[in-house]
């Protein structure tokens, strides 16, 4: 059930009505309804994986309590590691086993040893990377005594399985979401309206930007050997906007839907393409994952406390692991590695926290510098996206090489029977709207909100791509 589907448009009002008019007696009834709705939502993808989700939930619930109750450090450690290993084990089997098996076999073959890998015939359960990380953060926080274990199974299940964030995040923290779940929600008109704005803006990003850019980006990437420099540059830009519109659009809808139920989720995107350097980009892109890796990997590894080499090592580890989190392919690893390389000069010059303030542009030289630094950062990001999107690292390298060697900047007709330059105006307008509203969560709230909502609906209907129906990219992670 996609957020941009008719099925969801029916599902959401039904759950909303039941939540506020039938199951509104106390927080337990509210939570029970949301759990049922969430499990139904998840089973629409594949009901068989519901058992995996319930098992994973129960495992973390039980081990969390055992860690808290554990009288000796040995017992606490046992339950902690059991949870970590089982969670990562599921992730490893479903997501990474085939990759490692085939890579190892290729390595042996290249060394002259004949080997045919034993591959598992499994499909990746939707959302497994997201709900596994929910569970992991919960168990780690209990082990390090940052939070208390949750004894109410329904409340804990809702924290893991809450349908707006179940399949593509944001990756929530028990410290943030569980306290909200523990109290009865009261309806708040302004919050609900804010939710509607976010849902509509999320749809704008998804159906106008992401799904419209997708066929152009696909046409360029799938035929890159016959594309000229101009088309290849445009292809990378289209993919940059496709993935941004797709993922941040999903997050916006998730946050908006959640506000309708009186629950605030963590913000996941903050206009990342307006970043002035890569460090700022990573503070604005997929914030819930970046902060997860910072808190549960970078800091436990020693963070930036242990000297320069440790800082560099830890930086590379979190970027590469973050890349690998996206999928079992060398291209994701390369994408993570490239971002680490981008980050390195900032780290070495101690300027990775330079751009913490809000961006202001005026008619002066400094503003030109800011503008150029935004363009430069965006260009770096696009280069990295080429690795993320390409089928293999070789394809990515050849793609980038061809941008330089083709030296042809004429307009090209793509195999989707459209010209490569067609979307530039649309993307330009989108960027201007986001730029003018970068201090807000979304551009629709504030003055003239009714008119802006009407225009957004009109734009979705008139300019959206619906027939070439696309699922959200991050569902595959």
């Amino acid at each position: 059930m996609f957020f941009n589907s008719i099925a969801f448009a029916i599902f959401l009002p039904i759950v909303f009505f039941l939540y506020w008019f039938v199951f509104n007696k106390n927080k337990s009834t509210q939570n029970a309804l949301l759990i049922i709705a969430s499990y139904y939502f998840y089973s629409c993808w594949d009901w068989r994986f519901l058992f995996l989700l319930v098992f994973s939930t129960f495992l973390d619930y039980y081990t969390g309590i055992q860690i808290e109750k554990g009288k000796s450090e040995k017992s606490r450690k046992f339950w902690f590691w059991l949870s970590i290993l089982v969670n990562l084990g599921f992730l490893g089997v479903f997501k990474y086993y085939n990759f490692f098996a085939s890579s190892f076999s290729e390595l042996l073959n290249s060394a002259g040893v004949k080997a045919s890998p034993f591959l598992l015939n499994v499909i990746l359960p939707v959302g497994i990377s997201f709900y596994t990380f929910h569970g992991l953060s919960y168990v780690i926080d209990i082990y390090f005594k940052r939070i208390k274990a949750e004894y109410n199974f329904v409340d804990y299940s809702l924290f893991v399985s809450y349908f707006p964030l179940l399949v593509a995040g944001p990756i929530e923290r028990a410290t943030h979401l569980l306290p909200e779940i523990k109290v009865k929600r009261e309806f708040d008109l302004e919050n609900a309206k804010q939710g509607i704005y976010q849902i509509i803006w999320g749809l704008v990003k998804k159906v106008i930007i992401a799904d419209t850019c997708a066929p152009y980006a696909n046409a360029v990437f799938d035929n890159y050997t016959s594309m000229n420099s101009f088309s290849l540059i445009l292809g990378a830009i289209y993919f940059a906007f496709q993935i941004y519109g797709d993922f941040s659009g999903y997050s916006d809808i998730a946050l908006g839907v959640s506000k309708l139920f009186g629950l605030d989720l963590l913000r996941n995107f903050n206009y990342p393409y307006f970043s002035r350097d890569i460090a700022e980009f990573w503070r604005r892109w997929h914030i819930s994952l970046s902060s997860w890796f910072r808190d549960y990997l970078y800091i436990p590894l020693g963070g930036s406390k242990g000297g320069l080499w440790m800082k560099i090592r830890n930086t590379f580890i979190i970027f590469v692991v973050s890349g690998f989190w996206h999928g079992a392919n060398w291209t994701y690893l390369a994408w993570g590695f490239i971002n680490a390389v981008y980050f390195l000069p900032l780290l070495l010059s101690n300027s990775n926290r330079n751009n913490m303030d809000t961006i202001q542009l005026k008619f002066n030289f400094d503003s030109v510098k800011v503008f150029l630094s935004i363009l430069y950062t965006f260009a770096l990001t696009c280069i990295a996206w080429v690795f993320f999107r390409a089928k293999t690292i070789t394809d990515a390298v050849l793609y980038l090489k061809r941008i330089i060697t083709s030296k042809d900047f004429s307009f090209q007709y793509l195999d989707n029977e459209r010209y490569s330059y067609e979307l530039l105006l649309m993307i330009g307008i989108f960027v201007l709207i986001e730029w003018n509203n970068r201090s807000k969560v979304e551009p629709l709230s504030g003055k003239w909100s009714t008119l802006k909502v009407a225009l957004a609906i009109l734009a979705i209907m008139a300019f959206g791509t619906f027939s070439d129906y696309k699922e959200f990219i991050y569902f595959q992670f």
Partner: protein
Amino acid sequence: MKKFLIYIAKISVVTVLIAFLLDGLYTYIFMHSNNRGKIEKVFNSKAQKYDVVFLGSSRANNHFVAQMFEDKGLKAFNYGMSGGHLFEASLMLKLMIERKYEIKNVILEADLNLSNEHQAEGISARFLPYIHNSEVIKDHFSNEADFNELYYIPFYRYIKYDGKIGFREAFFISMNRRTNAQDNLGYYQLEKHKNGNMKNNIVNLNPLKHNKYYEEIKNICKAKKINFISVMTPICENTKGMNYFDKVKKAYPEIHNYENVVIEDKYFSSCGHMNDAGAKMFTARIIKDFFKK
């Protein structure tokens, strides 16, 4: 909560109003289109007189050289639509009749397309802007599963088929940007492709015994006293399941089998489509067999 429900109701009303507004605007634009495609050309035309009209899929569009008929003094137009099935061919003929066309001969390409009665959505969608302005279009779609949504929900058809009749197409019509669909009297010539696929496998294809839309075309021609000629057009030699054409002949004895009048690969652009040279050979044979004066 009451205020919020009123707010949602307002948004819903605004959405419906926008849908009506856009539906009206897009339909108006499509009603004034006549240089983008064959369907628009027929819908927005007045009564025409033709000696010969060609119908069918790409195997009609790329195979009947209408100009060769014109050279013989016969007014002709190739209304074959690449990607189309008999569903669309039948509707096209109905639309012509609704527009009071006077047609002496219909040549229908009827071979591979006899194997199904489905609509080809990419092509049939182009009729949908006119669904409220043409009884035959409305009736033709009335048995389709999503007819109620397409007919009654404003703007739904433009959203569902946005790739074909959405903003981009409406914009190009407004800009009066033409396509080549009507060039060469509707015939679209193909070139010889170096890497053209010269293999085909139609083993699993079977002609339906009484194809609804084939029978419709035949019956319309009979009722309107139009000479109906149905033909199977050539396919490359390297095709598995060539007995398909025998099965067609058995089920429909009136269909003329021209599958093997052009066989050499050099006359094909791909296995199912002849190039210009092949199309001219084939058309010459059709003229010789049916229009020899």
